[in-house]
């Protein structure tokens, strides 16, 4: 799971307000190189909840990311940093924690399990 995927996931716990972003506990991460394409990174940025990403990145010991400024969209150094953050860091093992309920969701082999009831399947 990459950090952009984390950035789109909310807590499935019903009635949990402010259930975004999920707190990310990263036990094992890998960096896999990917080809840089500035246009693609700009496109991905258009979907990012930046403040949530910035806090998450800091919490797992990456970054720091700058405070948002519209000028960053055209800043090549920043786009390269975002490329690394969004596309090259893979969380392999860890946990996602619902900020409202404290309920934890495991990430194993890179796949977060957002099921509440295992017996659903």
């Amino acid at each position, binding site marked *: 799971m990459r950090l952009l995927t984390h950035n789109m*996931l*909310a807590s499935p716990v*019903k009635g949990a307000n402010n259930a975004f972003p999920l707190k990310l506990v990263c036990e094992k991460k890998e960096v896999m190189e990917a080809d840089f394409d500035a246009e693609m990174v700009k496109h*991905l940025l*258009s*979907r*990012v909840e930046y403040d949530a990403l910035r806090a998450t990145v800091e919490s797992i010991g990456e970054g720091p990311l700058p405070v948002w400024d519209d000028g960053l969209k055209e800043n090549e150094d920043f786009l390269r940093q975002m490329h690394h953050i969004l596309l090259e860091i893979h969380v392999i093992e860890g946990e996602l924690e619902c900020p409202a309920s404290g309920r934890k969701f495991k990430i194993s082999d890179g*796949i977060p399990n*957002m099921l509440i009831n295992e017996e659903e*399947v």
Partner: protein
Amino acid sequence: MKLKELEGFLQTVTPFQNPKVMLEQYPTSPHIASRMLYAIDATFDDLDGKIVGDLGCGCGVLAIGANLLGSCYTVGFDVDTDALAQAHENNTDCEAEVDFVRCDIPSYFDGENGFPRKFFDTIVMNPPFGTRKKGVDMEFLKVAFQLARGSVYSLHKTSTRNHILKTASSWGAKCEVVAELRFDIPNMYKHHKKRTQDVQVDFLRFDLSQVSSPSESDGGV
């Protein structure tokens, strides 16, 4: 990438090892998957450089194929841990870069907590047909409409076409039948009497660009 080349890659994707009948886990064959994806890319330009989601991705053939055709970010969702483990392995084998998330699609994306956002440009999916669990096909479609900004591509039983077209248009989407397919479903389950069963399937495209223009409140910077 040429069509034959894509099909070749997708032939290396291992399908369900132990298909689960309640989840209607019929694999999308490499033949059908490659032609679907090729049409989406070549005719509609909805994969290259796009953010793509696959709902009920199973072993990942559509998600992986979409990524091989140039999607800039792809996420596959499924409820079944065995299918996802296989999808993860297939992803590595094909040297694709797809993220996978385990969730129950209709209940996870039920609109609570302000989610889902319109995160994806394109949704590509082969959802359950709703044969075992009535209405689940429409639940998947509804979620797809909530997640995608541009278009949704989906496979449905031809016998349900009128119902789907009517519902989609009531949700504000323009729908076209891209192709009529024959799904050759092998005898994987006990309830199948014949050796194989041909099912008439529509390959549908839903254009969401007129539904509502995504605003800043949908997220993004």
